[in-house]
């Protein structure tokens, strides 16, 4: 088990290096640099001030030198400062991270709270009208784009209930009520699409499991349906769902951009988008690296959890 974990961690570190290189190159492929963003079309800029700005940001160096200059600082914990606003990158990210984390948490809880029971019921009552409705809703959830759902939610809630997304983020530790008021609606919107994926996974996994011999044995032993489901079937059916849920969190971290834009939440999704438009390379690189670390750590945790839940693979 320990060997497994160490192996995973080493793979993670190598992957992270790969991520940094890819992001570094990709963002430099986008035409235009921060110099044009800063100077704009109207500025009377001599060639000299454009060049001096380029030198200031190190953009005149070869790419591998720029990468080395950046990565050697990152390795000692210095992610640099935002070129556009002079805010230190780490500070920028940390100021926005709690929002995205909370949003993703609400979303995944919504997804599991809706998806798992729906999937179980659907599987148990397979081919009934209940199953049909649930599958239809799952199809809708998969097909509806999150940005549409978010925009519609804002429109409907504002017209019907005079509700509007909050302008400023309030931490749950400061005022839980206000915080929930602003995070529930976007979290649920974001979670609905995930719920569909989880529902379908739960349903198919459950269908698989209840046909197994040991379930038939449990029923034959005289256990109640409830005991069979929770005690035997669900425990096994939930394993693939845990993996999917883990992957969903990764998707949610990315999909949060749209929800953050629509609901004006100051999260890291919006931060990355903003930084890309501004060609603020340190922020793009730093934020993507951060997200990659979070996502990969999560995957390692899910893998360990998987091993814990499923003794069969524990001793590989």
């Amino acid at each position, binding site marked *: 088990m320990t060997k497994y974990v160490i192996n995973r961690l080493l793979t993670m570190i190598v992957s992270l290096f790969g991520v940094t290189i890819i992001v570094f190159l990709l963002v430099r492929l986008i035409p235009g640099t921060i110099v044009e963003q800063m100077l704009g079309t109207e500025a009377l800029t001599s060639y000299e001030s454009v060049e001096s700005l380029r030198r200031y940001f190190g953009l005149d160096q070869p790419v591998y030198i720029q990468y080395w200059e950046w990565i050697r600082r990152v390795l000692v914990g210095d992610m640099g400062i935002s070129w556009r606003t002079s805010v230190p990158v780490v500070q920028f990210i940390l100021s926005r991270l709690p929002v995205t984390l909370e949003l993703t948490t609400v979303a995944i809880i919504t997804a599991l709270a809706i998806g798992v029971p729906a999937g179980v019921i659907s599987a148990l009552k397979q081919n009934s009208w209940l199953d049909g409705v649930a599958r*239809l809703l799952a199809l809708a959830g998969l097909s509806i784009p999150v940005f549409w759902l978010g925009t519609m939610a804002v429109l409907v809630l504002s017209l019907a209930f005079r509700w509007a*997304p909050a302008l400023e983020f309030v931490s749950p530790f400061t005022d839980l009520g206000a915080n929930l008021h602003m995070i529930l609606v976007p979290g649920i919107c974001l979670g609905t699409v995930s719920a569909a994926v989880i529902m379908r996974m739960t349903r198919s996994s459950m269908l698989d499991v209840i046909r197994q011999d040991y379930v038939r044995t449990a029923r034959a032993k005289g256990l109640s349906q409830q005991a069979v489901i929770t005690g035997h079937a669900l425990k096994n059916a939930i394993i693939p769902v845990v993996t999917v849920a883990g992957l969903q969190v990764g998707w949610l971290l990315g999909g949060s951009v749209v929800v953050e834009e629509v609901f004006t939440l100051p999260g890291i999704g919006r931060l990355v988008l903003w930084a890309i438009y501004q060609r603020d390379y340190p922020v793009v690189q730093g934020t993507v690296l951060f997200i990659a670390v979070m996502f990969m750590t999560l995957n390692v945790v899910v893998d360990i959890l998987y091993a814990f839940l499923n003794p069969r693979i524990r001793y590989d």
Partner: protein
Amino acid sequence: MNRKLFCALSFLAVVLMLVAACGGPAATQTAAPTPKPAEPTKAPAPAEPTKAPAAPTATTAPAGPKAGGTLVFATSIDVPSLEPHLEAADAWHRRKALIYENLTWVDNDVVVKPALAESWEIKDDTVYTFKLRQGVKFHNGKEMDAEDVKYSLERVLDEKVGSAGRGDLIMIKSIEVLDKYTIRITLKEPTGPFLAALAGRYNAVIPKDSAPDGNALRRTAIGTGPFMVQEFVPAQRLVLVKNPNYWDKGKPYLDKLIIQVVPDEQTALAGLRAGTVDMVGIEDAKNFLMVKDDKNLVATRTPAIKIDTLELPADVKPVDNIKVRQAILLALDKPAIMQAGVMGLGQVIGGMPPAMKYWALPPEQLPNQKRDVAKAKQLLAEAGYPNGFNLKLRTIVGYATMAANAPVIAANLKDVGINVSIETVDLGVWIEDWRGLREPVTLNAWGGFTDPDLLYYRHFHTPPLGMDFRRWKNAKADELLDKGRSTVDPAKRKPYYDELQKLMAEDPIMIPLYSADLLNVMQPYVKGYVQHPSGWYYGFAQTYLAK
């Protein structure tokens, strides 16, 4: 049984969706090939706020201005830094009008007025002696005097600092401090736009030695304006508080002004309905149309000094032939383009936008403004293109008005045989080509200058004094621009710019299409805000909450 039920439900859902999408009033905004404009826009329409009457500066409202309160203003454009001499983002200049001040400012009627300079004398057209306002305090308590002004202007002029405002002040030969409140600026030669240039976007007065480098004033501000910066969170919000020592006693009325960045305008409008937002600056005309008839809100339109244009550089085949350029101008249906671009919420223009007031010639006084397909075809034939030709038209990613203008222009030009293909490029690429003087036929959106020289000189005068971005190399234009610049009396300058506008309509190197209005929506208790045509937020100094 259940399989059938599932299929039936799915089918029903799809049918319902189709009906919902296709039925209902067509609130769509896709530019049809020949759309009819909503109202015929011949003469430029004056500002027509739909609720409150357009009150110019001095408000004589029945219940006078009330002091106090916090106003939340939502806008979708954010501001990366607060540097007064270095930050080029237009969104910053809008806000800067409340925090920093210059020696002069240009008012809503595009007339230069005193700001930090109380009065001035001009000798020999080149020596300006300014008497500064006394008792003006910076936000840090220091009194403003001539040394601060000298420091600020010299910083802008310093090549090492790299301010884009250097071009505005390049005509200055020397700056002398005569005494604490008197400063003398000598110009190299008579320059008509000098006082307007002093009011420019980069030339704010800051305390002496307050900016040893480009970072000192990026996240804080020390100005003399009606509001002070309490909190600045980049890409999120700017919180301004009343300057208790502001020299215009009694102003501003508001205690606090929160400029909140809300990237999705629908969300901002939801905030208006819910009462969490007091006022929204709208960038997308479609959103304005959604709320302009709402009885609970006040929606205003103000003519602006920005223009949307079609650029025809003089060295790009086949628009290098003047007849081809004229043909293109005659082929355009400007009202239709404006309808597509900004839902008609603007003014069709031929030269300068009507918000330039005194300087602007209305389209009726300019040649080639009426659509004339027959004449256009004839000109093309004379130029050697009886069967038209293919043309690549460039637009910029993310500029929704350009994306809407382009298809209408393409349709208009197809009527005369020109086949337009639209090429969309990133802003960075566009800027590189533009500054490298190699851009192709392209759409553009610019303007925002408060003097005709500041608007046209750099754009059209040949190098080395100008940039001649479109490689026009027009000697007559150079002559008019030089005369307009070196004459100081506005009445004597006007004829040169009138002739220049006519010349630009005769030889359409740049075709002004329309000027989009500035759109605001606010709660009915927000009073006293008058939108400045530059888009800047001067109006908040006079705004109060009647509640």
